[in-house]
């Protein structure tokens, strides 16, 4: 899934200036946060170490990061989790499986760019 998303976002690179920072777990995500100035964050809900909701909660309560828009990706079965992500302040939500265009659209919206 991660590789797929990375590839997708990389294709986005052709039309926009995008640099991707990857993290393979919740802990890794926490570790890379201070080292980059991020414009948007994509996260799954089911992750090792800490889950996506906890990550959203951390970011949205952190004075340094709370402005970064977040796109949460998860499975269709977790309607409840979607509500929770929104309650915690996540801007966008995407249900797996999704079409490539959907991801890119949401990403554009997060970055405040008009859709193609």
């Amino acid at each position, binding site marked *: *899934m991660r590789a797929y998303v990375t590839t997708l976002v990389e294709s986005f690179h052709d039309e926009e200036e995008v640099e991707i920072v990857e993290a393979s777990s919740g*802990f890794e995500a926490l570790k890379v946060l201070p080292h980059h100035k991020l414009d948007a964050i994509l996260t799954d809900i089911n992750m090792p170490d*800490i*889950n996506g909701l906890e*990550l959203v*909660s951390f970011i949205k309560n952190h004075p340094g990061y709370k402005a970064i828009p977040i796109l949460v990706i998860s499975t269709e079965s977790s309607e409840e*989790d979607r509500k*929770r992500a929104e309650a915690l302040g996540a801007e966008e939500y995407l249900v797996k499986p999704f079409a490539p265009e959907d991801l890119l659209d949401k990403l554009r919206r997060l970055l405040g760019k008009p859709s193609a």
Partner: protein
Amino acid sequence: MTKDDDRVKEEFTSEAEELLDALSNDLVEFESQGRNVRPELVNKIFREIHSLKGLAGMLGFVQISELSHNLEDMLDKLRMGKVEISRDLLDLLYDAVDSLNRLVIAIHDPAMEALVDVPKLTSRIHALVSQKAPEQKGDPLAGLEIDEQTRKSLTEYEEHRLVENVKSGRAIYLVEVTFDFSDFDEKLRAITAALSPLGEVISTLPAIDSSGGNGISFRLLYGSDADKAAVIDTAGREANVRSLRTGASAVAPADEAVVAEPGAEEDFTLRSMSRTVRVDIGKLDHVMNIVGELIIEKNHLEGVTRTLQLQNQRMVSHELVKISRNFDRKLNELQKSVIETRMVPIGQIYSKLGRTVRKVARELRKEIDLVLRGEDTELDKMMVEQLTDPLMHIIRNAIDHGIEPPEQRVAAGKPATARVVLNAYQKGNSVVIDVIDDGRGIDPEKVKQVAVKRGLMQPKEQIDLPRACELLFTPGFSTAAEVSEISGRGVGLDVVRKNLQELKGSIDIISDIGKGSTFRIMLPITLAIIQALVVRAGDENFAIPLTSVEESLRIRGREITTVERREVFSLRNFALPLLRLSDAFQVRDGRDTSSPDTKWFIVVTRAGERMVGILVDALVRQQEIVIKSIGDRLKAIPGIAGATEIGENEIILVVDVGSLIDNYGPTARMARSGR
């Protein structure tokens, strides 16, 4: 069909098989945990199905992907406590994994697909999922002093786990820790690992350093039966432990005392974490063949060295001996590591066996507790594959014939549930697999009745246990009153023995009437390259695999005695039956074979529990040999395992001790006594 398609199929099949094997094992564990299945296990099963679905979907195996998708849904609901653990659920899971297995086989053998009914399974899944979930009274978390942010950050699953912990009467703690940013991950993992054996770490919420420093804080929600002092003790002094609710009972009910494995919550992604490479067994066969050829070359080299030594070419031979010794050492290392790469744990087939046992027990209405031991014992991959059928047959046989019906067991003072133990272990260069049942044991008299009916023995003949066991392996023998669907598949134990002999293995029975039987299989660890004793009989050399050799002795003709028209040698008060190799293979022996002064060697060999002394003219040397098949035309000749090249242009036959005893024991006896 393109080559690429084939490769995709091949790769999918092996990965899917691995997942399904793991699933089968997990289901057996799932069943054994009753109604309190560990959440880690449910998660693992969920992830395995999830991986299979992903894999099948990606490669376009529609049926597999559909079925696993539905299963995944059901398992997700199970994780969330929306589906209850029941007999129906377990049966459905077993049937579904069975069908998935068949669908994977169907990729190569489309006939298999007819045996799978995906729509039926799907409707069973739907029926189970739509059953009403257990009613929940009020908010079980009402009494919990949990802060808003922590509660809001729980996923639905984590909330469910919290509820389960509360319901089971565990105390709930909030463990707060603050670490330096540089190594928080290690420290947090260490704390989680320390806490896990005592309870369940339900969630981990990161927060800004609560002490105002540059670090990072975490709030762990932790459910445990331990008291606060114990939790503080485990979490360490830096941790701030707060009790959100005191446990209903200080002591956990016995079935609740589940221990979570550290690190059981693993990576949720499909990324492989293991440091392994998947290799086609054909490629390893090829490497093994090259090693084999090298060994033959090494044998040539040694032959030349010997010749030079005989010709007194000291300088040259001395150098050659040195080179060939070094070469030998390196070759041994290479061979050892190639063999190691081919080794797989026998546990790989245990899961398949578990399924069969369940099925057979259900069909025969017998209650079986299958105990699997020694799953880490390693065997050559090819052997493990070929071992499945014989093992399956022996286990079926044990359940069908060995195990009594529950009523009979109870009447005999035994527990209604029978025990079948599968125990694998290494013994020297062999692997032993015991199939032990606590059934009725083998009654020689009953065996005799059948044997007489089948014309395999005379009514006036005496029978003892060894003879009875031999009869069980005789073609056309079956003790079942009626041929049942289970054992009566047109295959008898004779075929099992033949299959095992093809693997250079043996099978024996140890039995105790009323108490049970043990079927003991012995196999060499690998087939490809073996140590052998090269012997001479008449004008010919033969190789005897060293795994079959117990010892060798030098004797004179006069020490051979005759007991009941059979030649024997008195070996430490044991009458060892003898077999003249030159007689068995009708090799001309120029010596005076009946003179009391003729020198002989006895190679004491063993195939399972049966021993025989092979009489030969001379022992040539011990060496490593590579067994080559001698082709189909000569395959029918019993007593021969194959041929091997032992030196330049010298090809000799390799003796198969098991089949030699089977086939030439009586012949040799008649031939000698006729003189």
